[in-house]
């Protein structure tokens, strides 16, 4: 085991490493002379080797690959004179911008390094080789680069007394921490439960789930929680989404503006979900995705379940954009699809930007252009640009023998019906012909008959002419309907029968697969400058040279005699998943780590090369990769390892002492806060509103542009976001706003932005507004079901809720005082009008009805009364129009009363009158009544009386209260509001509000209700003020940081 001394060595390495990444090379040259291998060669690789070393054709005869070649020089003499920069031609040419040719330049910093190196005598770290093969050799430094070194089995430092070190992950992380840092304490149970739900299934826990795990008494409750979540089918959905990012999954072809839909891509998506759910060993998953068709055996007859699975897996290699079936089947388009496919393979499975070596040797990594084309040769037999198949031609039918037999049987029946139809048709034609013929005299009649009955090709010119000059006799199937419409109708019945039969045929389904044709071995050429018009030498399939020991480059058989296909991809997949190959395992565990911690151990998961980042914890990366391989490439095992570590379980809270040492949390002294991903956000909202349809698998849910042009997911299918159709040209607004990738090639790391359009989307976007309404509906139901919750809240703390401003009733006018002496609320609301009961007339209230626009009075003792109550002291004026629309009846009388008595009176009969009342003063709580009565009898007394009441509160601005728009059903029952608010918290945040939070919400409700009253606005159509406030609370909770961030 590592003792403390090794700890300190380790520590020093850290410091050196940090030093290296923090400062450009130019600044450290003072201490050490630059060496060829470490400083100079990378510059030459970037700018010079293309023409001076990479190929046998050396420009100017100059080879820069070794220092001694540079000294001996080329056609123009010595390239460098050690110790004498001024006489060194290389430096001069670079300095003056002659080299490199074209417009790219070596930066001044790098020129300074070159100069310094020559001045110091052009030192090398070691003796140069005697011989050197063609191309740019891979140096010891390059081969020793961390990403190509074998995966080590790091020792686990011992921390016998530290209970925070739960797992080897913790030991390795703690070991790397600088003095003064330690893990934070564990997050509380609530947070841990939530975190585990988000991490493993991508959905927040409900309150019930939280309660279940909060109250769990077993000491190993946490392990049980992890197991339960790993066993959930939603686990596969969550982690498939991550993999689909890297695979570049899309439901459309892209490349051309047509962006044709990929109808069958979803089977690959489902394959990934299922594979993750069954914890298919990841090496197996890689092999199936790369070479499923080569494993599937001969394809003929019915596909077995296993064959379907294997072929579906190769959808991975069909993810790249491909315009060859939608308008551009050019060599450029084909080669672009191949290049994108290689880029996807490289970044996901090799952790390498190998695609940068398509046009020339990689400028920074030891990957030659030959390496790139050797990789291309692996895929060439299946992706052959010279024998290209557009996407549709690559689909594999899932029809079985039985399907085909059924179809054939149906076609047999169709044939019979078609024959019957033909017979019938011929008979009709014959009939019509005979009838038409009768219109001709002999001998023309016989001549026409003979001509008609002679097959067209045997007719003599005379006959042809005869028929042509008597067109009406040329009866054919096509013109039959003109003579006998009834016959045509009868024949159509046969067609209908055929269509009906054919509809019973099994629907043909397909897989989007990559299948290599048997016995197809195209030759792969290296393309000069990546240009397919300039093929150069033949390249054989092989793995990356640098990933094998010197002189042991792994090549693959051109053609495996054991297989009908070439076996190249299978061999490549086996090479890649060989436990000794360091590339794939590191790439995979790094990605999983990244998703759990928000940042990879290598921050650039698609590029472990020089342009990417270095691992912050190289030993941890190796330990995870080795452990992953040792445990059968099990992702679920890897999740357990990570989730049981203290590093993952610790709290996310910052503290000053940690901040002072490591503000960026590079050392994992706390868990970093993470914003939920786009899909989690949308899914969580659907879950809270109770709309989420948890159905697994299947064709994607369609997307479409709404009237504003925003792309939305079909709201009738509220399924998890990963099932939404991913059209490259039509990214879903909500998901894209929150950084879901728009697939060009693939997505290694999602960006994580905080921008105003996200807030606008959450505040004003239709989806969120709709969902907030649905959550509010649920809170109402829940509160009604569980009224006990109300008891938890001291109702005496309820802030004053403003009473409704309009009421609807009947009553009495005291004729002596000229005021309203009695007002009785109408007891029943039909949904559109207030009245005495479900049916009018009502036994008590008679015909009294009030609706938005007007209503109907009852008998002489039962006027219809619309009442407005002044919220504060102020001034009122009224404008309106009273109308009686029937020719029958004796009309109605309208009056306006205030506390001061009758304000005005009007009478209408089959006509209308303006009902304007000039400004008068009211006091808070004063009632204004608009009373309509029937005069003598109530027959045919429907009326309309829209009123606009302008109220100017003392010291305030005038507000118009419109009797039509303000018309409401029963007033809110605020007694349930606390329970509803509690329910909103529980549905959205999976917890009850604290007393303070509840109080704050109630105060908000009270203030907003007051604002609504004062402004006579603020509610959506068909919503009461109380409901609207609740909707607003729900919407704001879904906007809150607590909802958007995972602690």
């Amino acid at each position, binding site marked *: 085991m590592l003792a403390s001394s090794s700890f300190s060595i380790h520590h020093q390495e850290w410091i050196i490493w940090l030093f290296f*990444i923090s*400062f*450009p090379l130019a600044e450290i040259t003072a201490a050490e002379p630059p060496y060829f291998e470490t400083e100079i060669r990378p510059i030459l690789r970037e700018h010079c080797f293309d023409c001076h070393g990479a190929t046998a054709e050396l420009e100017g005869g100059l080879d820069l690959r070794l220092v001694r070649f540079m000294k001996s020089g080329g056609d123009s003499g010595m390239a460098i004179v050690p110790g004498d920069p001024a006489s060194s031609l290389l430096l001069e040419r670079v300095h003056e*911008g002659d080299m490199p040719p074209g*417009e*790219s*330049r070596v*930066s001044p910093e790098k020129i300074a390094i070159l100069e310094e190196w020559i001045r110091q005598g052009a030192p090398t770290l070691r003796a140069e080789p005697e011989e050197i093969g063609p191309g740019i050799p891979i140096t010891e430094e390059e081969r020793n680069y961390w990403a190509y070194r074998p995966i080590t089995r790091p020792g686990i430092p011992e921390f016998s007394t530290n209970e925070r070190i739960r797992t080897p992950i913790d030991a390795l992380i703690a070991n790397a921490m600088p003095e003064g840092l330690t893990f934070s304490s564990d997050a509380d149970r609530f947070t841990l439960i939530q975190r585990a739900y988000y991490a493993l299934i991508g959905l927040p826990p409900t309150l019930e789930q939280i309660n279940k795990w909060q109250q769990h008494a077993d000491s190993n409750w946490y392990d049980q929680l992890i197991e339960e979540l790993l066993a959930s089918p939603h686990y596969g959905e969550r982690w498939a989404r991550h993999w689909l990012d890297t695979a570049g999954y899309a439901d459309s072809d892209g490349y051309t503006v047509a962006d044709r839909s990929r109808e069958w891509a979803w089977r690959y998506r489902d394959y990934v979900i299922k594979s993750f759910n069954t914890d298919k060993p990841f090496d197996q998953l890689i092999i199936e995705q790369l070479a499923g068709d080569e494993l599937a055996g001969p394809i003929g007859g019915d596909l077995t379940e296993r064959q379907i699975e294997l072929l579906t897996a190769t959808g991975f290699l069909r993810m790249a954009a491909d315009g060859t079936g939608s308008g551009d089947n050019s060599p450029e388009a084909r080669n672009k699809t191949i290049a994108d496919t290689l880029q996807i393979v490289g970044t996901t499975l090799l952790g390498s930007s190998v695609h940068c070596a398509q046009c020339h040797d990689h400028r920074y990594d030891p990957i030659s252009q030959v390496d790139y084309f050797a990789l291309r040769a692996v895929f060439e037999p299946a992706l052959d640009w010279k024998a290209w198949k557009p996407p549709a031609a690559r689909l594999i039918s899932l029809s079985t023998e039985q399907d085909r037999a059924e179809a054939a049987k149906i076609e047999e029946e169709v044939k019979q019906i078609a024959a019957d139809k033909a017979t019938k048709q011929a008979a009709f034609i014959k009939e019509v012909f005979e009838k038409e013929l009768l219109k001709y005299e002999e001998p023309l009649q016989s001549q026409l008959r003979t001509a008609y009955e002679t097959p067209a090709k045997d007719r003599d010119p005379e006959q042809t002419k005869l028929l042509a000059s008597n067109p009406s006799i040329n009866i054919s199937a096509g013109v039959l309907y003109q003579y006998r419409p009834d016959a045509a109708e009868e024949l159509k019945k046969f067609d209908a029968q055929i269509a009906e039969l054919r509809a019973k045929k099994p629907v043909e389904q397909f897989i989007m697969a990559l299948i290599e044709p048997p016995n197809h071995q195209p030759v792969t050429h290296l393309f000069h400058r990546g240009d397919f018009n300039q093929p150069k030498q033949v390249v054989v399939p092989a793995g990356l040279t640098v990933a094998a020991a010197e002189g042991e480059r792994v090549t693959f058989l051109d053609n495996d005699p054991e297989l009908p296909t070439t076996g190249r991809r299978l061999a490549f997949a086996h090479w890649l998943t060989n436990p000794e190959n360091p590339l794939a395992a590191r790439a995979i565990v790094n990605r999983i780590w990244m998703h759990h911690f928000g940042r990879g151990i290598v921050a*650039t998961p698609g*590029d472990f090369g020089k*342009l*990417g*980042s270095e691992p912050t914890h190289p030993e941890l990366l190796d330990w995870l990769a080795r452990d992953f391989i040792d445990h059968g490439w099990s992702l679920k095992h890897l999740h357990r390892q990570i989730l049981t570590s203290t590093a993952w379980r610790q709290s*996310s*809270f*910052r503290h000053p002492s940690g*901040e002072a040492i490591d503000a960026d949390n590079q050392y994992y002294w706390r868990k970093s*806060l993470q*914003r939920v991903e786009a899909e989690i956000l949308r899914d969580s909202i659907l879950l809270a509103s109770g709309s989420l349809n948890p159905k697994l698998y299947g064709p994607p849910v369609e997307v479409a542009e709404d009237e*504003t*042009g*925003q792309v939305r997911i079909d709201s009738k299918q509220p399924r998890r976001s990963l099932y939404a159709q991913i059209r490259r040209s039509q990214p879903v*607004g909500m998901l894209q706003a929150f*950084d879901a990738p728009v697939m060009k090639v693939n997505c290694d790391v999602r*960006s994580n*932005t*905080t*921008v*105003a*359009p*996200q*807030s*606008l*989307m959450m*505040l*004003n*976007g239709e989806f969120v*507004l709709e969902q907030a309404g649905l959550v509010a509906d649920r809170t109402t139901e829940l509160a009604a079901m569980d009224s006990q919750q109300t008891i938890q809240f001291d109702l005496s703390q309820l802030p004053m809720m403003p009473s409704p401003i309009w009421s609807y009733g009947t009553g009495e006018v005291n004729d002596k005082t000229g005021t309203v002496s009695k007002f009785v609320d109408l007891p029943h609301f039909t949904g559109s009008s207030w009245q005495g009961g479900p049916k009018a007339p009502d036994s008590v209230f008679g015909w009294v009805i009030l609706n938005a626009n007007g209503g109907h009075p009852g008998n002489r003792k039962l006027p219809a009364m619309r009442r407005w109550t002044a919220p504060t002291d102020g001034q009122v004026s009224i404008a309106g129009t009273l109308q009686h629309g029937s020719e029958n009846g004796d009309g109605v009388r309208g009056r306006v009363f205030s506390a001061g008595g009758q304000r005005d009176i009007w009478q209408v009969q089959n006509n209308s009158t303006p009902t304007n009342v000039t400004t008068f003063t009211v006091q808070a709580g004063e009632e204004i009544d608009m009373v309509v009565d029937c005069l003598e009898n109530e027959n045919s007394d429907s009326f309309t009386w829209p009123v606009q009441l302008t109220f100017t509160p003392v010291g305030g601005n005038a507000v118009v209260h419109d009797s039509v728009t303000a018309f409401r059903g029963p007033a809110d029952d605020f007694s349930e509001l606390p329970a509803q608010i509690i329910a909103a918290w529980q549905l959205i945040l999976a917890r009850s509000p604290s007393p303070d*939070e509840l109080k*704050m*919400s109630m105060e*908000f409700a009270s*203030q*907003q209700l007051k*604002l609504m009253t004062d*402004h006579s*606005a*603020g509610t*959506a159509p068909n919503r009461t003020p109380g409901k609207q406030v609740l909707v*607003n*609370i729900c*919407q*704001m*909770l879904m*906007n*809150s*940081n*607590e909802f*958007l*961030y995972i602690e």
Partner: protein
Amino acid sequence: MNSHLPVNSRRQFLQQTGMGVGAVALQWMLNRESATAKPPVLKDKPHNDLLPRAPHFEPQATAMISLFQHGGPAHMDLTDPKPELSKHHGMDYSGDIQFSFVNEASKKLFGSPFHFQPYGESGTELSDLLPHTAGIVDDLCLIRSMHTGANGHEVSIRYFHGGIPAVLGRPTFGSWLTYALGSETQDLPAFMVLSDPGGHPVDGATNWSNGFMPSMFQGTVLRPKEPRIFNLQPPKHLSGPFQRQNLDFLQSLNQQHLEEHPGESDLEARIASYELAARMQTAASDALDISQETASTHSMYGLDQPETRDYGTRCLLARRFVERGVRFIQLFHSGQPWDNHSNIKTGLASICKKTDQPVAALVKDLKQRGMLDSTLVHWGGEIGRLPVTQDHGSPEKAGRDHNGQGFSIWLAGGGIRGGMTFGKTDEFGHRAVENIVTPNDFQATIMNQFGLNHEQVVYTHGNQQQVITANRPARVVEEIIT
């Protein structure tokens, strides 16, 4: 809402009207302002914010409107008179020439069918196709010696926007500018793109891509029709005080949450983004409301004519955005209307008709409002056109093929010398021969006007230190600066 106030009064404004703004968010915003950050330089970690940053030295321009003319305006028919070309019309060109459309290529010299004459005090010659531009010629610096060296559209477009010919995946000019200087406005995006109702230009969203920078440095595309910004307006029932009340409730929830998570800048940024969203609702709606402009302004920009209405509206909106502190605004056409391979006589006249008046109005308007001094206006495409005929059988149908060897653009305002021409093409207008300016020079010069040393604005991507010109040769064209 008056949102183009100087910083101090904006601070007062925020404090006065800040009731309801979450106290934390307000404090955060004010902190942003008080500590105007330094511009990014070599060795800086790339930042991930739009803090206003001081330039390296005193700037002459603080905002820019780029009127990008996709397709390659034919300089010898618009801005670069060539009497020799007219004299040799119909004769064979003796020099080497690169064609993109070989099947229709000819070497027959094609004298401009349009008449040129000098305008203004400067006497700069323009063709009859640009009568309105002729009226602002004394404010322009017309560069007649642009050179991309490549004839292809995308190659040169990416050179102009991203710094390297043909290369994808790089941040565009607006991204670099907003990365370097941050946002002056707290109410609107710093980099805005006004797109054409007909659709995106050639090369699509690459024209305003943030490349390897975070997406906050990407151009925000204003839709060509209503709604110009998605989700900008709340539904009717939430507008006004109701949403403000909702936001206050939200911010009090968030503030309480933040108190439990001190120091989480992500949470603070989210709180601030809600306030920005709220302000954007007012500010953007206000900026987009061109009914506030007088009838004479409307007619100056050509809003009263069908041909100029769209481009005029966008030019006017650009001015209104600059007034409100937007840093960089770029106007694009659908496709590439200046790509006159055939029927150049009618095709060129038609796109000139669409743009000439609005463009001139913009410069005039900026000048009369005293904004031209600090606002740089750029007009130009990615290439020009060849002096020879692209043959379609008849002279009427004749056009011109691509030419990246020499062409014209113009700049105005922001410390650029007006009333001058700079550089020359050869006697036929084929190649730039004097004072050649490349897109990298163009980038360096504009950065300079913003007070930035283009070599010092560095973004570290992977382990590479990136600059706008990708370390290609670039010079500040001092001759055209006041």
